[in-house]
């Protein structure tokens, strides 16, 4: 059986990739995908623990996270399309309509 620590390290790597992508990328779609990556990194650690301890609550959490992520993807993509129509760009540094 694969030990728990492997899962956790993979989960940490995934989360760190997500954070790094979120911080350094300018394209809003990439940022969005980085967020998904972070969520799934966390999901992985949830299911890993659930399998390790033989409890279901971790898996239930994951379902919730997936539901929220799906909703977020729907709303987020809609917003991104609206933003693109308004600003003709997906570069977040240029989407600064609310700044003084």
């Amino acid at each position, binding site marked *: 059986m694969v030990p728990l620590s492997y899962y956790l390290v993979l989960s940490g790597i995934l989360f760190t990739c997500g954070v790094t992508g979120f*911080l350094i990328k300018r394209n809003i779609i990439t940022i969005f995908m980085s967020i998904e990556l972070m969520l799934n990194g966390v999901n992985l650690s949830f299911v890993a623990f659930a399998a390790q301890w033989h409890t279901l609550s971790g898996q239930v959490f994951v379902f919730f996270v997936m539901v929220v992520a799906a909703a977020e993807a729907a709303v987020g993509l809609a917003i991104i399309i609206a933003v693109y129509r308004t600003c003709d760009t997906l570069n*977040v540094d240029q989407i600064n309509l609310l700044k003084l």
Partner: protein
Amino acid sequence: MTPNLHLWLIPLLPLIGAAINGLLGRRLSRQAVTGIALAFCGAAFAMALGVAIQFSALPLPYTEALAHWIRAGTFQADFAFYLDQLSLVMLLVVTGVGFLIHIYAVGYMWEEGGFYRFFSYLNLFMFFMLTLILASNYLLMFIGWEGVGLASYLLIGFWFTKDSAASAGKKAFVVNRIGDFGFLIALFLLIKHFGSLDFDQVFRLVQPLSPEIASAGLLTTVGLLLLVGACGKSAQIPLYVWLPDAMEGPTPVSALIHAATMVTAGVYMVARSHVIFERAPIALTAVAIIGTLTALFAATIGVCQTDIKKVLAYSTISQLGYMFMACGVAAFSAAIFHLMTHAFFKGLLFLAAGSVIHAVGGEQDMRRMGGLRHRIPWTFWTMTAATFAIAGFPPFAGFFSKDAILFKAFTSPHGSWVYWAIGVFTAFLTSFYMFRLWFLTFFGEYRGAESAGHDGHLLSGAPVSHGHGAIHESPKVMLVPLVILAVLSVCGGWVGSERFDRFLAPVFHRLEFKLVAAPAFLDGPHAVMPPTPEPNTEGPSETAFTLISVSAAALGLLLAWLLYLRRPQLPQEIAHALGGFYQAVLNKYYIDELYAVLFVRPLVDGSTKILWHGIDQGVIDATVDHGADAARKVSDSVRHMQSGNLRSYAGWVALGAGAVIGYMIWIGAR
């Protein structure tokens, strides 16, 4: 059943007058303002007369409680008025002389701007003065006490555009505050130890204390502090400096407030507190010494003054000194007697001086007057009456009261020949400087510029508006009060100090009475003379005293005649011969300069250097400034985090999370 006297109306009426004139006077005509001021002041006088008529039928002392004021625990102070023989005398003097001066002021101030303002203040003064007199407890008295100070301040600074008048008002107010401070502390001590400020209650508690026990501290302290208060209000050494400067005010004000009534409030207060003073021999002696010194000191300054009003101002201080001397030898009725006659003749002197100043067009320097007796005969004759009265010639009013004081100063158990000798010498000086004034003003040749006319009014701050330039007698409205006061100055003393003493006996001897007298005396307080200690009969008789004081006055008259009429060049020579001493007296012994060096300068410098530059700027401002500076510097460096760049925020969050995780790993690894 006691009849209701409605005493509360007496102070209230002038207040209504003050309110009407003060609020609406700007829109009223001069006639209307005059009518209101005189009506309300006259009504107060009429009520005082009414009280005096019913007086013999009243059970005295009569107290009229108006409303509760302060009730805190066992302490209470009410709005209540108190009438006994002492307050009645004061009441009649204040309303009577006050009313006459109101009439006079109509003529004197007619041409002035701010006519309504003047009468509003004058009525306000009457309100506070009557409150002071009629109060039945020290706290209410203190309200009147402060109020007359306020009215005095407002009226001294009546011509407030003139710098000297404004600062004279300020000086009077500040110096009075020093005295008031002493008065207040005395009141606090009374509350602490007797739990009351009501005259009756305090005196009832004080009365059983014998001088031996009482002088151990409390009553002496209270007495001395009350004396400090009285010194401020009544212009005694060392707080007299404000009164000469107060002459910057209009002359009716000098007559009413700074001669006849307000400045005697201190004497009234000491006389009212006689129960305390009689049981505090040290405080009583202090009163006598201060009074005697002031009488002499002010009289010597008066000799050298050339401003007609300044002479009268120093004369007032000196006469107040006499009253304090009388209080200090426990001859309170003599003090009040002198207070009354002094109100007549000094009020008259000021009014007549005002009439002279009016006649010569605002000139106040006596060296530029002279020979006025034929030009302003009414003023001359009334002033003559007052001059003879203050100098103490029989049968004028001042003779009786001054004689009573000097006699008591020698024979009273608290008295001493020293007081008497200084008193007689002061009487000589008084006579001298008053006749000096009289001769310089009314005799000899006119020394002023004939055409000066009324230009001088500008100097006194008053606008020029009469078109005549020649020396002229004052209008009738000013002469009538002069004549009435002249009659009072002549006849006011005929009541005699004996009868006056007997009249006031229920006030001043009531408590001792129960203490020392046999019960038989208690049956008829009006019928029986109080058991005043009989003067020792070995000493010179009263006639001898009278002769000595009258001859002192006559000597003063002679000397003044010799120096200022017969040989007018002689005063110059004497002044040269005296040299430095003359200069010192001429400059009022440099007391103002001394106070400036001792108190004013250190206060101003200390406030500027220590309190302002040191504490305010160095500590308080610096704390705030440096605190703000530090906050700004810290935020300057920290605000770069708040760049508005979303991803940098996310970076900070990630960094924080990393730090937390690192910490936890480090904890786990340990």
